């Protein structure tokens, strides 16, 4: 069995949004649609204030709240753990958007582009009418994973088989791999480092792990 997961090392992430940009390029998402993004978090109070950057997006939960509320069965789950949306089945009701604890889903009802209603040539080439009026979110670049596997490549290791955000991360903060393989890159990281899952109390069993050493080391 395989379960694809993402690992984000918060000790490394600098919030640069290169992953956000790469995701938009890889998946041709419209303006303001960010399947991957990094949020900028502050806690504490002056002068004991702290700041942290956290890559977020669909957590590819083992028990996805979005799936159980979907009336049309458009949201599904693959055997490898990737949570999917069938745009042909989706009726755009938006229940999943409300149910998702990670605010990972987007819906665009009408085409809009970087500079208004008219697409630039680069946008026109890649515009997908099928995404209008339906829920959309991070796919873990399942098409790259599948094509890569078909070519004998290893997702998370070979760029052609790896999600665009991971390929682009300049801080080497994002990793992708098979958690069921105990020797995989992600399994080793989770074995060696301290980690948490977002909203662990909801028991969604996310496929997204955050490495975090607890913050500043003050001597």
């Amino acid at each position: 069995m395989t379960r694809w997961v993402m690992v984000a090392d918060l000790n490394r992430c600098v919030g640069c949004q290169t992953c956000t940009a790469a995701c938009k390029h890889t998946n041709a998402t419209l303006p303001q649609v960010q399947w991957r993004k990094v949020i900028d978090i502050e806690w504490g109070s002056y002068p004991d204030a702290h700041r942290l950057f956290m890559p977020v997006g669909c957590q590819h939960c083992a028990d996805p709240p979005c799936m159980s509320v979907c009336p049309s069965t458009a949201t599904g789950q693959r055997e490898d753990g990737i949570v999917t949306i069938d745009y042909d089945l989706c009726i755009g009701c938006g229940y999943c958007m409300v149910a998702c604890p990670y605010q990972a889903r987007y819906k665009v009802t009408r085409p809009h582009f970087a500079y208004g209603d008219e697409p630039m040539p680069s946008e026109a080439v890649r515009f997908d009418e099928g995404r209008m009026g339906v829920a959309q979110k991070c796919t873990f670049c399942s098409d790259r994973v599948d094509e890569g596997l078909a070519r004998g490549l290893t997702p998370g290791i070979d760029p052609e088989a790896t999600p665009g955000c991971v390929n682009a991360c300049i801080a080497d903060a994002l990793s992708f791999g098979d958690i069921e393989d105990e020797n995989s890159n992600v399994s080793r990281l989770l074995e060696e480092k301290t980690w948490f899952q977002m909203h662990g109390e909801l028991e969604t069993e996310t496929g997204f792990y955050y490495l975090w050493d607890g913050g500043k080391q003050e001597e």
Partner: protein
Amino acid sequence: MHAKTKPHGKKVSTYCYQCVNGPDLLTVEVIDGVATRIEPNFDLRGEHPADGKICVKPFGLIQKTYNPNRILHPMKRTNPKKGKDEDPGWVQISWDEALDLVAERLKKAREKGVLDENGNPRLAFTTGGAATPFKYMGSFPAFLVAWGPFDQSIGAGGTVKCYHSEHMFGELWHRAFTVLPDTPSCDYIISFGNNINASGGVTGVRRHADARARGMKRIQFEPHLSVTGATSSEWIPIRPQTDSAVLYAMLHVLMHETPLERLDVPFLRDYTSSPYLVGPNGFYLRDPESRKPLLWDLRSNRAVPYDTEGTEPALLGPFRVEEAIEVGPDEETWNHRNVEAPTALDKARALVSDKSPEWAEGISDVPAATIRRIANEFLEHARIGETVEIDGRVLPYRPVATVLGKSVNNGWGGYDCVWAHTMMQVLVGALEVPGGLLGSTVHLSGDTDWDRMLTVEPGEDGFMKHPFNPTSKEEWERHPVNRHAEQSITPMAGHNQGAQLFGATTLAWLRLQGRAGQNWPRPKPPDVWFVYKCNPAISFSETEKICEEMAQFPFIVAFAYQMDETVHFADVLLPEATDLESDQLLRIGGTHYFENHWVTEGWALRQAAVEPLGEAKDFSWIANQLARRLGMLEQYNSMINFGVCGVPLQGEEYDFSLAVDREHDQEEVWDAVCKAATFELTGGKEVLGLDWFREHGFKTRPFSRLHWYLFPLMQDMGLRFELPYQERYYRMGRELANRLHEEGIHWWDRQLEEYEPLPEWRDINRIYDEMIERDCGANPADFPFWALTARSMQYAWGANVSVQLMTELSENVFGHDGVVMNRGKAREMGIEDGDTIEVISPVASVTGTARLREGIRPDVVLMVAQFGQWKTPHARELKRPGINPLVPMNLDSLDAGGAMKDLTKVKIRRVGEAS
């Protein structure tokens, strides 16, 4: 599922050099002739310090190419009246008409003589992006050089928004135009506002992330919690402009609270000027015969010339010297007998004797215990005495570094800070050795910016040779050539090809405005001003006045991407092919800028992945056309052959030179450059042309890590680092004072005070308060906040404010969309997040949205990046405020090097409620 969003097109290799941390090598996916997607060039894994990853800015290149607001046809102004509120009346014209118009003006200028009646060049050229636009200009630089003298002093932000004091002194001391820790080996970094996560590019981010992962500690002193502070071990919210106080206190800890034996005594003794003896007038005591500086030899118990064999130099004195001379300015000489002489290190110790951590606490808001602890941690981490082997050579291993940010290392106090932080390195022997503080590249001491070692030659007094502008009576440039008078007034800037960029660009504007330089004729604007990839109307200071001045320029040629605030004043617009539409070969690797220390070096091609849109033309084509129209083809081609495109086309063993008497298209030019470059790279084994580079993108060879460090070369040449004492600088300043006073010039006297052999601590807060009172006629007490700016990775150097993707991405990083204030302080003033506030400086005011945060001092407001656009499409709709209009520009704001800071004191007023 994603039939249309996942098409596979062809991949074209090219690079992004929108900022100084580049070039980032990448691939562009092209579908049916349309560029659709950018990816890192994964072939660079293992060669590049960040495995070929690319920064966020290149992802904006697709939108930059297809932005509907691009100017795609040559245009000319029809309304002769220029002004912010005037409509230029643009009309589209043909390339022939546009080039004829420009050529005609250039011809007229040339006929009158390349210098005007004031001796200033009639042609001026201004660019931005820390000169990275030169990497986009194809063969155009060959045209400029062929032209003759052209003025680059009309700045767009350099010397205000740069690391100017570090540039000046860094190159003098250790061939370091910019400095960096040897991050892959460094264990402890003290950073005073160095915003490496925003300014250090891909390689900076990656190397620091790796270092954190192996336990490196970074202490961030900064008035606000930046993206770099966020990932530091500690954030210490220091009061703005008091960094030198903390640095001096740390030096106090190392020099007065630490026994000398715990410092790196062999390094101080053998590789610095610490043992040189200083005379009563502040110049080195010298041997009367050889005129060489003296040091005290503990073996023979007498003063001997510094290079005497078999000595044991004393580091701390004082000593009594029987006979010696001192040589001051203009060869003034003093003869001494039986004179008491401290060492240079004694003088440095004395400078900080009363600068205790307790003293600094009151100034900086940093607790004395914190300063003392960090200074001692620095010392402990320095591993004094340890060594490491690098490529077969044993070198000292000192894994500690101190680094400075912008506005800490330029303008007033910049000298103090760069001296103090470099001295921190010197005391523990952590300069230019593995783990320590390194230089990156050079721009002042030579033209070989890809190999700083090539510029090292033995000079006077055991130090490296350095190309200062002369200050002697015979050689001083009495009549300024360029409008900022760099040869006359900023000797540290030097006079090589790039030196103009480091003179007092603010002074050029002030002189044009008639606000400075009274003893010299007020300069005229250039007859022809070329502007490219810069926007001084936004990026300089007191921008309203800059606009008024630009409106007086008779003929401005803008290589224009879109309408913007500077283009608004232009006469002719020439649309040049942008990043993905044009060709140029470029050196990569080696050591280059901040954290770009590679283990390979070579060449990479930027190539047209797609056809230029509209009538946009490759810069090389434009250069060719102008050269032909001016009858300058021979000079222009000769300059290409000479090497202006990156490498000489003719060498002892090869000849790829172009025929000088005819036009060559860009393909021919770059094919020849590719061949010469690969011949040079492979020692003649391979000659690869343009077609090879179009397919493969880049060509490299190994680059030894030993070449990252200057120390071994200094050791081999028997040279000393020119620290701690600045005798040459002191003498040069006294000579410059003599020259200026002989001409009756006293308006530079304040700057002349900075030429001290050791920088006496300056209170920058007091200097700014005095400036507000004296130059702005305002009461400093009315301006209780410091307004600061910070670099943004999404925008820095990129000229990409009109790229929608950058807007979208930057909204994820706090503070881009307004004025950041301390939450507690704001609420005290009745200001809530989202309210509109007015930020008022002594010279102007701007309004913006209040953004409240805990990670900022209560006496500071922050405006990220450079906004305030009123003309640039897209950007003008963002209504993001910028700091630049608020920054007072006056002579008093300039330091001796001619640099100033982009910060100011302000007051805040709430003007509207959050919507």
